[in-house]
């Protein structure tokens, strides 16, 4: 996800055209990652509410996708497929049948799991009408990704600002109106099925040709590139200024978790304590993305690490908030 966003930002800065086959392979990798991430999240959500059958079954379904990733890219999780200008490995024709077969199995099994848990009243008691955030509040807190889509907001970078091969493939935005945790489960499961559809279409429509652009020209310094990618959790934005010696002069990544975390106080307000973990878990948080902020004063060279309290105080000062969030 992040490597795609970074490479696209540099490609935009240097005006490099990625070959069509490279763009399709990028989509295949992104969507395989989305499938495994959503299934992983389903398992974790089941584990948080004490329903470990979902954890075991979701992770069992997920495992063949990981093996597939390993076969295509050489690693299970850190795919390392992207380079500025294209992708590193081709998806050979010999692997297509196996890919389609695994996808068919994942589709069948996740549909079966969805059908099984859809009528489970113990599960629904924990998920329905819990962690509610209204569409207006979602917009006010700028929630992203499946969390926003479960509140009835049709927002998806793949459709709004299409990149890679999404203009050719098209993509349906999965929106649910429930605003609760159950809607987030449904959005993610429906997105998994949509991702399977996208990988199938990408395999079918993938043209032949090179996977890397001609990279013999050096990347000019001082150019600006901005790129957005729809990660499983929401939008990822990367901003790059190219520098001397083919290295970035400045680079800023913005992950979706920090935005989504802003909605947590509203989601858990008035809920039981036992609903707080699943309320937090329902947006698939990644805390390493949000830990702290460090600023460097260019003139004096002073490095300052901002603590949580200082950041909150600054946020409140900027937005004119008096009372604690």
């Amino acid at each position, binding site marked *: 996800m992040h490597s795609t966003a970074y490479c696209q930002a540099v490609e935009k800065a240097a005006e490099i055209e990625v070959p069509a086959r490279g763009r399709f392979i990028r989509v295949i990798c992104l969507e395989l990652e989305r499938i495994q991430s959503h299934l992983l999240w389903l398992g974790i959500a089941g584990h948080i509410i004490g329903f470990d059958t979902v954890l075991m079954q979701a992770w069992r379904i997920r495992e063949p996708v990981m093996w597939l990733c*390993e076969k295509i890219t*050489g690693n299970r999780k*850190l795919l390392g497929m992207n380079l500025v200008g294209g992708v590193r490995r081709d998806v050979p024709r010999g692997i297509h049948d196996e890919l389609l077969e695994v996808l068919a199995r994942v589709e069948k099994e996740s549909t*079966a799991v969805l059908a*099984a848990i859809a009528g489970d009243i113990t599960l629904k008691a924990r998920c329905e009408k819990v962690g509610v955030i209204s569409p207006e509040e979602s917009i006010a807190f700028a929630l992203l990704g499946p969390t926003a889509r479960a509140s009835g907001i049709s927002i998806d970078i793949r459709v709004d600002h299409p990149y890679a091969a999404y203009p050719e493939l098209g993509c349906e935005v999965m929106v649910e109106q429930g605003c609760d945790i159950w809607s987030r489960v449904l959005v993610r499961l429906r997105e998994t099925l949509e991702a399977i559809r996208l990988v199938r279409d990408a395999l079918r429509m993938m043209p032949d040709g090179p996977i890397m652009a001609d*990279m*013999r020209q050096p990347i000019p310094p001082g150019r600006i590139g901005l790129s957005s990618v729809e990660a499983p959790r929401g939008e990822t934005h990367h901003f790059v200024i190219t520098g001397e010696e*083919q290295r970035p002069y400045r680079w800023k990544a913005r992950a979706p978790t920090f935005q989504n975390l802003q909605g947590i106080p509203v989601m858990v307000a008035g809920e039981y304590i036992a609903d707080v973990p699943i309320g937090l878990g329902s947006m698939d948080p990644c805390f390493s993305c949000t830990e702290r902020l460090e600023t460097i004063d260019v003139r004096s060279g002073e490095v300052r690490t901002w603590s949580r309290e200082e950041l909150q105080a600054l946020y409140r000062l900027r937005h004119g908030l008096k009372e604690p969030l």
Partner: protein
Amino acid sequence: MLKSKFKEARICFSNLRVTLPYPFGPGSEVAEGFRGKIDVDASRCIGCGGCANVCPSRLIRCHDEGDQTHMEFILDRCTYCGRCAEVCPEGAITMTLLFESATDDKTDLYIEQQLYMLTCKRCGRCFETENAIDRIPTRRMRKGRNYVGSSMPHGAPGEREAS
């Protein structure tokens, strides 16, 4: 209510046990083309420093000491991206299928090699033979002084840009 419990039970019972007794028994095989721990063949290395140039986590250090080129691989920082193996013009770095690199001794993940090089009579820099240096597609990363030769920012070994 009961119907969904039956459905769940059927999913569980139709897929009994899928885990392996690893590490007490054999685990599953890794796929062909797996990017595992890197292996460095010092006899093929020409000390060009291309791997040090592309390594995203900067774990390969390459610098000259007298008539030697000193190379260090600090593998505890390795992300297994395999760029070094991809750009190596001599095939000295290969990705093995090893993934069990956990250790209680950090020096297990440290490779050091010293390459005896020829020295340029005029400038005192190390190099191998002229032919070998012609084959180098990447710019050399050196401590303090950068060898400014032909530059090839993003790989494609074997090709080189006219400098």
